[in-house]
């Protein structure tokens, strides 16, 4: 008897956990009859299709996940409230704004790449707050979920955003998770504009996934071109991360273009995840081959170690990084003087005198106590690009994701957007989802980026 009892108990507890997860995004598990009743009409509308988002969703469908929230707040949606209080800044779940588009994104908010995810989240939050406080007809409600720079967790995060009722997506912040989530949002017909996922595979073959950043190969070519035309060095060493998509993508196209520019690559060394702490072999190889410029297509963490170790061994070539280097100055425990003279390509210059940029930088510094990097700027631009496109398409927040998807595809391929990143002539997108944007050369002087041109 006891055996059976325990068996039933275990099964029950497991089901309970499943149920708890089921309601993960909802504010409160339904323990009274009312919520279930509210849910049934929405669900019984399409009993035959278990995946309710793969098919163009009916209004019923998209409303279903919101039921719980509406009930909690006491009143249902129809009456638009005109008092839009600015939402609290550091809150992950900002107070809901009436008639707002639900904008979701995933990014590494914890772990090794957290600086990118948090920057993108903060940048997007500033844009959302500014738009909600303005008289714009389009309002947003933003939610970012943590994916810890992992494809599996990114899909989980994306699904929990879907449960929340996401209508438009900011994709994922980093490349590999973005590849996984963009496939999902293509299958679900949820329009996606990623601030910083730069691998070509993110947008390949998906007509509703767009990028705000230039692609990896583009960066490699631009870097080699820049070094060649500006005569920055003739003997080049490349240190890259062999198990990283981003690093590999840039390095491959860099080598191609370096050949075309007549640059001599004298040292080509790698490291990987497990051995990213000691770079003496790579640096000695570069030094022994008399490289006068070292190209570092990698994120800022290993780059900071390379700079420190090179300085310790008395090797002082010119350093050239890419946009992943952005963030090195705000890294904790890093002596910023080591980065003095490092050149990097980035689409955004926080020291720009441009009015919009200055206002954004001031606001970001006020709220988060540090200078924004390009990830923040890209995410900020994404939200404003959405605002412009939604306004132009006369979209309303009661449309479902699939309808907005159609409108956005049309808008993004035809509109020109003027943002913090990119050039004076504005940004345009082609049908593949790639953006027309050229990187800016920056050099670190006195602990700040200064434009090289």
């Amino acid at each position, binding site marked *: 008897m*006891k*055996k059976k009892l325990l068996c039933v108990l*275990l*099964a029950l507890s497991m089901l309970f956990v499943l149920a708890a997860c089921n309601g993960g995004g909802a504010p409160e598990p339904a323990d009274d009859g009312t919520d279930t009743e509210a849910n049934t009409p929405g669900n019984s509308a399409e009993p035959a299709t278990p995946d309710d988002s793969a098919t163009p969703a009916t209004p019923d469908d998209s409303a279903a996940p919101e039921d719980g929230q509406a009930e909690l707040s006491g009143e249902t949606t129809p009456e638009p409230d005109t008092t839009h209080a600015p939402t609290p800044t550091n809150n992950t779940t900002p107070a809901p704004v009436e008639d707002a588009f639900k904008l979701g994104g995933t990014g590494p908010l914890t772990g090794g790449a957290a600086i990118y995810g948090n920057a993108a989240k903060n940048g997007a939050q500033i844009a959302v707050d500014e738009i909600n406080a303005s008289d714009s007809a389009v309002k947003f409600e933003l939610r970012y979920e943590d994916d810890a720079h992992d494809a599996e967790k990114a899909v989980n995060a994306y*699904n929990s955003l*879907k449960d929340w009722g996401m209508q438009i997506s900011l994709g994922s912040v980093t490349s590999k998770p973005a*590849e996984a989530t963009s496939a999902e949002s293509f299958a679900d017909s949820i329009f996606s504009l990623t601030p910083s996922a730069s691998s070509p595979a993110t947008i*390949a073959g998906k007509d509703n996934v767009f990028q705000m950043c230039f692609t990896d190969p583009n960066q490699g070519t631009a870097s080699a071109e820049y070094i060649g035309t500006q005569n920055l060095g003739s003997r080049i060493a490349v240190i890259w991360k062999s198990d990283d*998509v981003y690093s590999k993508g840039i390095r491959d196209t860099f080598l191609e273009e370096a050949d075309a520019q007549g640059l001599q690559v004298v040292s080509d060394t790698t490291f990987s*995840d497990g051995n990213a702490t000691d770079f003496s072999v790579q640096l000695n190889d570069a030094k022994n081959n008399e490289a006068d410029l070292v190209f570092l297509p990698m994120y800022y963490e290993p780059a900071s170690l390379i700079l420190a170790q090179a300085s310790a061994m008395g090797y002082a070539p010119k350093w050239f990084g890419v946009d992943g280097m952005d963030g090195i100055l705000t890294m904790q425990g890093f002596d910023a003087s080591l980065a003095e003279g490092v050149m990097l390509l980035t689409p955004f210059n926080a020291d720009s005198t441009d009015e919009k940029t200055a206002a954004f930088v001031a606001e970001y510094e006020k709220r988060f106590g540090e200078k924004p990097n390009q990830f923040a700027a890209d995410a900020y631009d994404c939200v404003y690009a959405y605002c412009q496109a939604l306004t132009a398409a006369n979209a309303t927040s009661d449309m479902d994701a699939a309808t907005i998807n159609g409108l956005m595809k049309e808008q993004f391929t035809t509109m020109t957007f003027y943002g913090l990143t990119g050039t004076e002539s504005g940004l345009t997108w082609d049908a593949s989802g790639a953006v027309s944007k050229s990187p800016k050369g920056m050099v670190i002087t006195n602990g700040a980026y200064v434009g090289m041109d």
Partner: protein
Amino acid sequence: MRKSSSAPFHFLTYFLVIGAYAALQVLQARGELSATMRGMLVPICAYVVMAVSLNLTVGVLGELSLGHAGFMSVGAFLGTSTAIALQDAVPVPGVRLAIALVVAALCAAVAGFLIGIPVLRLNGDYLAIVTLAFGEIIKAIFNNLYLGVDAKGVHVSLLEDTTNTAADGRLIIQGPMGIGGIQKISTFTAGFILILISLIVIFNLVGSRAGRAIMAIRDNPIAAQSVGVNLIKYKMMAFVVSAALAGSAGALFAMNYSTVVANKFDFNTSILILVFVVLGGLGNMFGSIVAAAVLTILPEALRPIAEYRMLLYAVLLIVMMLTANHPLVKAIFNRFRQTGQIQLETDDEEKEAA
């Protein structure tokens, strides 16, 4: 820990798996399953298979393996490559998935066999050390492997992409970029069937003559050898079966996402699976299944509390470990197990009387 007279426990395990599957299918059909939960069904199946297969090595054979994710990786990459290569030849997704899972299991079994040859001859912790290295080696290999398929056949190269895959072909494994553009053909039902197959294989192996020999080796290798048990043969049997199941779990996992990279199957993943096994109880398949499912869902269920979730996850893990080892809880479990055994014995007696 001896499970020789635990037939009712086997029944319980099957009951749990089939019951959970049926319940989830009903919920899914009624549309009451959230997108988060729907998205996690296949990974949970894969992790459950990983956990029960590792339990065969750690719990039943008594050897510590720290590179189980390596076998998962072999299965994920080679199984997925097979599925992609057969995309035109085998149009039915279910059949293609089945072929891919079988290929993945075979490849992982070969890898397990090769590692087992030198290592299983040794005593002590050598298997732990070598499997740890194996996991890292597999990661390094797949991070540098290029595999292309075109009309002329299969091309393979290491370090640099020199496969010269024709334009009409496809470069499947792209070094550090892993495999991209995978068709999502893994389904919950396929995962459920894989769990059932794993359980049938493991329970039958453990209950068989070979299984007794394997457990005898675990409890006392010298005594086992003295009565004529071939140590290497039976150790190899358990280890290869465990590797093969892990390989098919890897393929199932990989084909649930549009992309897979070698870094996913690192040391952390191996340890995560070992945590499932240890928390569920060594040699206890039922516990492994519950632990794998709960610990996969837990981080997602804790999402609403954002930043604190990883902290709480760790705390819950420690609490669960302490609770499971508490004398009171242990006493309850032991009593429960004993009643099962006594009942079985009385059944036998009744049969004999009849």
